[in-house]
């Protein structure tokens, strides 16, 4: 299990951010290479993420779902379950958003196996950290 903490800033008020992070059609594309394939409910979707690893790319297919939400504290947990396309690997994560005015904090607890994990945990953590940092920067424009 890899656990990482990040913060983000949107410059927008908390109510706006709360609505935005719960809208999977807006939040999923903030992950580079991420897209919603199909909305299966207001709080769940089938999604895909394609990660370019230089010459090659790894594609993960799976689901993203809002599994916890506290509309008062503006805290939500998005659960990602995915499987490597044409491979045996998995990438699963619980991403906890804890909002405040103008932005918020993100806690990520991820489990990754397969080719991505074969880079070694240190490398995987570095890449995951860079991916989430990129995600937080994209959130600024949400």
């Amino acid at each position, binding site marked *: 299990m890899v656990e990482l903490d990040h913060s983000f800033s949107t410059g927008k008020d908390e109510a706006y951010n709360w609505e935005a992070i719960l809208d999977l059609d807006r939040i999923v594309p903030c992950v580079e290479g991420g897209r919603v394939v199909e909305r299966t409910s207001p709080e769940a979707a089938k999604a895909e993420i394609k990660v370019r*690893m*230089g*010459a*090659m790319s790894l594609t993960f297919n799976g689901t993203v779902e809002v599994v916890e939400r506290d509309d008062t504290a503006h805290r939500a947990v998005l659960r990602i379950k995915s499987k490597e396309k044409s491979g045996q690997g998995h990438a699963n994560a619980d991403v906890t958003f804890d909002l405040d005015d103008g932005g918020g904090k993100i806690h990520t607890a991820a489990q990754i196996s397969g080719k*991505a994990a074969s880079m070694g945990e240190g*490398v995987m953590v*570095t*890449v995951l950290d*860079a991916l989430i*940092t990129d995600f937080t920067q994209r959130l600024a424009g949400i």
Partner: protein
Amino acid sequence: MPTLGPGDGTLTVRTQRTGAAAKAGHDLVIEVTSWQATLELGDSPSVTLTADPRSLKVREATGGVKSLGDDDIANIEQTIDDEVLKGAPIEFRSISVAVDGERVSVRGELQLGARSRQISFDLLLVGGRLAGSAVVKQTDWGIKPYSALFGTLKVADEVRVSIDADTGGQADG
């Protein structure tokens, strides 16, 4: 003036990966499949080379978390065209050529894209076979080295360009 091309030998570019996630990438040997060079070693020695920037083909890939498939290789070649060389001209013209036995020391002007600057390298001419290489630092020519995985995987700034060709005795001057 004697002219060399792909029928006489190979012109290759070797790239190496760097960055925190270097393990995820591949070191590449890329062949330039369309090029033309001249080598004159007479009273006024000179070396020229022109290469088609859209003729680069991946021949070897080592490292990475999985081996490259045909699609991956096609993607690399497309990336070279679209994001790295962008089809811009590649041309070298010598300014000075010094011949010392089998060693040919060359200094000249290399144009890569919009930028032109000097570069020096040595060639060996042994028994009609010409071989040598030059290190090209991409950023010196305004080329941003390719990077992926949010900047954690990069192609090293310096790439090695090598020639190995049979002059068939043409360059004996």
